[in-house]
């Protein structure tokens, strides 16, 4: 009985640590700029290198799992590939808290009504769109990204621009 109580306490403490670790500091961020699907399409058309567009939301648990991967990818390939985040069906406070927590250091847009993923035909959240130079859609990944999928698609994008 004592053993079971100790195991239960260890588990609860570990889980409690997971709550306590969330930051309250929003890092003094400004609200994310709102954008329509037409404006977003025009924005992508003006980018002369491949682009990875990740659709996320602060309430989306799988988005938390893939955020560190996107951070790694943007720091490794940020010179060759543009990374953009699109926060959907969210509120600005939640969005800023999410960004402060994961430090996703690339441009993000706010899409309250989910126009952008609907425009490009993505399903659910998260979604990652892979665009060639000037906004040509190359691939869509619905659901959580794993390292292999992201690395392979980046490899494919780099071959387009070389």
């Amino acid at each position: 009985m004592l053993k079971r109580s100790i195991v239960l306490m260890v588990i609860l403490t570990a889980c409690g640590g997971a709550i306590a670790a969330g930051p309250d500091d929003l890092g003094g961020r400004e609200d994310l700029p709102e954008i329509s699907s037409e404006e977003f399409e025009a924005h992508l058309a003006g980018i002369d290198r491949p682009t990875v567009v990740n659709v996320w939301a602060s309430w989306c648990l799988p988005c938390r799992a893939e955020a560190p991967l996107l951070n790694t990818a943007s720091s490794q390939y940020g010179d060759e590939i543009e990374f953009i985040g699109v926060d959907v069906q969210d509120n600005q406070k939640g969005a800023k808290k999410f960004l402060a927590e994961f430090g996703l250091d690339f441009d993000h847009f706010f899409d309250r009504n989910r126009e952008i993923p609907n425009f490009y035909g993505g399903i659910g959240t998260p979604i990652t769109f892979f665009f060639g130079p000037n906004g040509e859609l190359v691939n869509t990944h619905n659901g959580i990204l794993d390292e292999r999928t992201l690395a392979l698609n980046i490899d494919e994008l780099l071959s387009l621009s070389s």
Partner: protein
Amino acid sequence: MEFTLLWAALTGVAFAWAGTKLWSERLPDHPTDRIIGAAAAGLAVGRLVAMMTQVINPLLHPLDILLVRGGVHSGAATVGAVVAYLWASKWTIEFLDATAPAALFGLAGWHAGCLWRGACLGTASDLPWARAEPGSLISRHPVELYAAVGLATAAWLVSRMPWRLLTRAGAALGLAGIIRLLTEPLRPSLTGGPVGWYIAAIAVGGLAIWLGPRLASQRITAPT
């Protein structure tokens, strides 16, 4: 874990079950129950650890433990599965030797599950058997199939090894680590892969092969 990955996991369990039929010699009673139970326990532990590393509280999101959408920590899952298996076997370490070939075969099945997921391809290659992703012109190594063939071969080799305490289990762990380590450079990766875990598996496998016969001789000579 996406549902396609769940298919890969189920393929792995099915292969492990097939392994228990192929190498039934000296297997404990009801090995399938233990293997499936250990796999489920390993997935649960791996999922809980993954949630905690992603700062998701399992107490606030209990359904997310079952609806595995955010990944499983493979190292924690492996440790959890082995501990659960030993616990179900009443800490009889000989059972690790008995099921080592079936476990390797199951791991081979997990890798072959890439065929269901459409996730077999790795880095670019000009070899004749290299294949391209749909819509792509770049042919690539079918790296997960290399791993599957390597692990299935290792399962067969381990099944032919002599019965000595921890020898088969150690060889299986070491070979799994070596095969993953050799195939890792062929996987598309951002981080280089969990190479540390593979090296640890090889080291622990080697230690088990060295330690097993000594433990066995101590058991024989120890006063009762």
